[in-house]
């Protein structure tokens, strides 16, 4: 049976930069939408960082790794939005698009004359998406923050950390991806509403609000207890044992969480801790906590003699919740990850082959289009100008020559 992607025939004009915005449209691209990434004529925003150390490689701008990861399954056109010709060209794209998305700070779109009110005149049912760090309005609306900064302002850093330690954060760009996925969800909901009512809208999803939403229970907890939640490290407020244990080898660990009496007994039996198993008082978690060090030492003594994958299988065979603390190499060679075809490996003409996370869901019927690389800078400009916007050869040449739509990043000095 032939299948369809969920977003067939949906076109998105994408002005987003860095990570959170591109992640949102990356998902929508993998779900079948045509993503027209409108790039800055002077190169890739996130690329400025890498370009800093450009060693003279040709077309280094096409090799910006983070760009290539978060912009898979998109098309690229470069447009100078600061000039009138560029603005008009962008509006022409908007007139044939369903969605416009941007993650500039709140003032930028208005300053460019491309605010929702302006774009709505071009396409009355357009869905416009803004994804500011802290909100389009309010005393902090003009503050700049990247993902990790919203972890800090939203309380996630405060509840993350080792026991009695300082505030911490989840590895790299958690808040960016988290908000990107919320945005993709919100966009699809707005599209559904447009199917029902014919109306577009201005959708605002705030990065920090997405962060606060995935720790929502802490805000109620604070009100119940009148004090700050403690940083628990790898402990659980109720279950014990709960945490990670060292295994054979360097920096090798297993995560275990014991949540029932049955699991406790299975664990004791597996590690040969008959003294613990026979002590009926230890059926109670609170009693176990009294001798926590002894219990943890006994588990570690057993796990240290074994490879963490072996420990995982031995424990899971006994119905114990256990899993390795996976490293990149573990995931890249894991039989489960492979059988589920989770990872997305693609080939880029300039950047070569690279592997990235795939989609976090699988459909039984609908299809997706993984396996599509990120576009090269301005790769689709000529095609989009001639096919989508029906420009003649002469007009296209002049747009390119003027630098409105450069085919390579250009240096430009404004006076």
């Amino acid at each position: 049976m032939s299948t369809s992607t969920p977003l067939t025939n949906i076109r998105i004009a994408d002005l987003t930069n860095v990570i959170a915005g591109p992640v949102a449209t990356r998902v929508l691209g993998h779900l079948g939408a045509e993503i027209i990434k409108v790039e800055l004529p002077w190169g890739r925003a996130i690329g400025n960082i890498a370009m800093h150390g450009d060693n003279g490689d040709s077309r280094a701008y096409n090799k910006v790794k983070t760009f290539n990861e978060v912009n898979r399954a998109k098309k690229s056109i470069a447009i100078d939005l600061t000039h009138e010709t560029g603005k008009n060209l962008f509006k022409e794209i908007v007139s044939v698009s369903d969605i416009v998305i941007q993650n500039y700070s709140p003032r930028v779109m208005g300053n460019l004359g491309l605010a929702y009110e302006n774009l709505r005149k071009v396409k009355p049912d357009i869905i416009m998406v803004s994804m500011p760090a802290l909100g389009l309005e309010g005393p902090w609306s003009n503050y700049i923050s990247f993902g990790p900064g919203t972890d800090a302002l939203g309380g996630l850093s405060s509840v993350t950390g080792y026991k009695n330690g300082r505030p911490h954060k989840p590895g790299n760009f958690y808040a960016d991806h988290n908000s990107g996925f919320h945005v993709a969800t919100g966009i699809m909901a707005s599209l559904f509403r447009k199917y029902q009512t014919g109306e577009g809208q201005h959708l605002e999803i705030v990065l920090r609000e997405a962060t606060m939403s995935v720790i929502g229970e802490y805000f109620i907890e604070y009100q119940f207890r009148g004090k700050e939640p403690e940083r628990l490290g790898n402990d659980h407020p109720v279950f014990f044992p709960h945490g990670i244990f060292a295994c054979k080898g360097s920096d090798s660990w297993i995560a275990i969480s014991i949540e029932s009496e049955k699991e406790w007994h299975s664990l004791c039996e597996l590690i040969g801790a008959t003294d613990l198993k026979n002590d009926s008082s230890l059926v109670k978690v609170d009693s176990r906590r009294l001798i926590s060090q002894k219990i943890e030492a006994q588990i570690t003594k057993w796990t240290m003699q074994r490879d963490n994958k072996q420990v995982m299988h031995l424990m899971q065979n006994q119905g114990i919740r256990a899993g390795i603390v996976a490293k990149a190499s573990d995931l890249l060679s894991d039989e489960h990850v492979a059988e589920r075809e989770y990872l997305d490996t693609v080939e880029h003409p300039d950047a070569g082959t690279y592997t990235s996370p795939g989609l976090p869901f699988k459909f039984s019927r609908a299809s997706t289009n993984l396996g599509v690389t990120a576009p090269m800078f301005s790769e689709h400009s000529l095609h989009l100008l001639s096919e989508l916007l029906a420009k003649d050869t002469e007009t296209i040449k002049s747009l390119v020559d003027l630098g409105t739509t450069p085919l390579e990043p250009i240096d430009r000095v404004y006076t």
Partner: protein
Amino acid sequence: MANSDLALTGIKVLDISRGFSGGYCTKILRDLGAEVIKVEIPNSGDTCRTFGPFLNDIPDIETSAPYLYLNAGKKSITLDVTNPQARDTFLALCKGSDIIVENFKPGFMSQINLGYDVISAINSKIILCSLTYFGQFGPYSQFEGSDIVSYAMSGYMHLTGDEDKEPLKAGGRQAEYQCGLAGAMSVLAAILTRALTGLGDHIDVSATEALTSTFDGVAYFQTYDQTGSNPMRAGTRLIAREPTGAYPSTLLPCKDGWVHVHYSPSNPEGIGFLTGNDRLADDDVMARMREHADEIDELLIEWLRGHTREEVQTLAQEVRVPFTMVQSVEETLSDEQNQHRNFFVPIEHEIAGQMTYPTSPFRLKTAEWQALPAPILGQNNHEIYVEQLQLDPEEISRMKKGGIV
């Protein structure tokens, strides 16, 4: 109360899941306007009701903090879907629903003869969203999971924490939240597919994959591919950056706590200007920022020492430098930006009393977020069973006695 300005007005969701992942999935659908009916186990309810903390620290199925947060505005009916005698009632509910969200172990729904084949035979438009720790198929699909196990197996844990300490789990239940978020995202995609094809879908979401999907794959996979060795956790800094990579991005101490300091590509000289320290805008440092990370930290700490978090944030933001405060839960609850946006609103719950709840990142300008409390267990039994399904009230009380409702 229906609100036609919300995106999912008219969509009906049957939530037979337990705990955080399904709870967050259907919270999102509810916030977007869907009617969510939680189908809970008679007497004890969703297992989330047993998770603390509770009001006054007294365990009570009506005052669990996570339950109250995740289920605001949903309806609750009781039905033991695993009991064969509940089958007809459950299938009648399926007939009138658009979406079912479940998080039993893979295969369990088929074992109780309520697999996707059975449900879709009754309602071909139905979208069944299955949330699990490891997915519906694959060698680990029958593994036992939990939030920390998924956090570990996703790869995230190895890269969270300090280099000289054991790997660290993020606060809260991030694997289960990401599972719920991926569930909601996929349900929306399936609703749009259905609008094209008229057919539903069975969705397979793995909490472990959902969390891996929030990876910076460049630092995680591509570094390994290139160097042949695994990237290492780096405290609060970004991991696995080239010597020329941007810096800072980390948490540093100041006069009264911690701040998040971050480099801005559009304002490279900003940090030097803010601190008045030329070394922080020096070409030599700027060209190889990551290599100079320790020095940058030291110089910044020297400046930060003289300022409170609030001063740091205000002074930095005035000159377009993205430094932000590390706020406690209490501070986040009451900061001026959240107040201005009414992100937290009071809701009165008949047993838990009045409290301030996070609203939702999905708040439309055209429609207010519906500030309603989480349901009391079985609160909507009469409405759903008698008024909507038009079941005989005597039949209902018979089922109640049998522990089915």
